[in-house]
């Protein structure tokens, strides 16, 4: 049973929850910001980034959420920095597919640790919250996205 637990709460996830990367980091001259909210659990986070010539040069997040939401946001900021908008959108699609579709193969590198979440349907929204918020930020939507 503890091994089952570890399949969700992998060491990498626990580490990113304990020491989230780019957390409470507000990129200087950030030009895209969005706020995300999961009404089911009250998790809230904001993503802010600097977009220069179609490339995400800096990104940070802030807020409060469970380990899955926090680790996913932390891993996301690491993997998005330096990506173009198109690459970021493609990555969102791949992560979304990994989290929601059984048997989706592919290798998303470090992000692959999130695959365990797919066995916990109630928790998928925790893992996707940061990604939806990123999407909203890239679309330069103002205000709040909701996972509901």
């Amino acid at each position, binding site marked *: 049973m503890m091994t089952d637990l570890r399949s969700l709460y992998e060491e990498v996830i626990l580490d990113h929850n304990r020491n989230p990367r780019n957390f409470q980091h507000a990129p200087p001259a950030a030009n895209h910001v969005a706020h995300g909210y999961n009404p089911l659990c009250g998790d809230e986070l904001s993503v802010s980034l600097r977009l220069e010539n179609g490339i995400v040069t800096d990104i940070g997040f802030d807020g409060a959420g469970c*380990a899955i939401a926090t680790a996913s946001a932390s891993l996301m900021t690491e993997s998005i920095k330096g990506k173009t908008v198109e690459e970021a959108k493609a990555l969102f699609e791949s992560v979304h597919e990994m989290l929601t579709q059984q048997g989706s193969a592919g290798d998303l590198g470090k992000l692959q640790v999130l695959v365990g979440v797919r066995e916990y349907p109630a928790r998928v929204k925790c893992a996707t919250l940061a990604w939806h918020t990123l999407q909203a930020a890239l679309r330069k939507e103002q205000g709040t996205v909701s996972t509901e």
Partner: protein
Amino acid sequence: MTPAREILLHTVPVDVFDTERIRSDFPALHQAVHGQPLVYLDNAATTQKPLKVIEVLDSYYRNDNANVHRGVHALSERATAAYEAAREKVRKFLNAQSPQELVFVRGTTEAINLVAQSWGRANLRPNDEVVITETEHHSNIVPWQMLCGQTGAKLRVVPAEDNGELSVERYAQILGERTRLVAVSHCSNALGTINPVKQMISLAHETGAVVLVDGAQAVPHLAVDVRDLDCDFYAFSGHKLYGPTGIGVLYAKMALLQDMPPYQGGGEMVKHVSFDHAIYHDPPLRFEAGTPNIAGAIGLGAAIDYVDAVGIEAIGRHEQDLLARATAAMAGMPGLRIIGTAPEKTGILSFVLQNIHAHDVGTILDMQGVAVRVGHHCAIPVMQRYQVPATARASFALYNTREEVDVLVAAVYRAKEVFG
């Protein structure tokens, strides 16, 4: 009888609570979740159902199914008799004066909306005041907000104390000559606090206000006597009382019900209809437009029979024993904070763990077969009051055991272990 046997009989207390026998009445309890025996501690959300209730539903649909109050045929008469017999069971359960004071509704939520839209719209004027408390469930907040928006009345909120209690003094300060209605929960679903409703009702009556008591979290745990409380309205849901979902009750004093306009229009609630006007039925049918949840009402009657047979006082004592055991174990756990520590509580234990979000606690407990509720418990203002995003909540029922409390405690320790 041998003397030894006689002594034994006299030393065993008559009210020994036989959880093993009770558990055998609840089929859903006997299953494994993630390979572990289910420990169901989400009873404040909804309770499991005893076989008696399941069988009554089955038998009704197999044998008696017909519409009520409208047929002369045998099945309709049987269904009507069973439906009205259930109303009488509710009357006895709440000690109401007459079965006509009990309206079958979908649940607590619909009962409160009925009062807001029928009594409230007919009686509230701009700048009148509706008083609620900081510890209410969303269903005892939003209908009053809507009503205030419609009538120009104002919502006043009694603040909660740090331990989850309501201060009668602070409540009394908020009551005033503009107060028309007080809506308060008998027991808080997020904290477990048993509120001093009898005293609150009497103070409200002194200022001429009527009082609605949300009894969703009270009727499964303590004896409720609406005449002793002298409340004007009392609402509860069947599904938290071992009955089916989709059925609940609004109790209202007959003098109020008689003057209230209908909540919904349709069949069943009218004596006569022409295109000019309709003549409404007397209560309670006036408030039961359309085909009601007949099976649900009959199932609720069976649930009340079950609770009566075990005894509500015995159930309350048993749950208090479980609460005390869980509280003692949890209170000593480093990094754990219990939210809601009033001296008078039902079997509800809400808690947060340092550095572990309630959702992670919920998932880790679920992996060990332990079902608790995590989140804001439809009481976001309560979460804000105690400055937590969410809590984990274990809530006890008559079929829970001390062993299950120990499994819960061990599972929480596991969660702490995983997160280091």
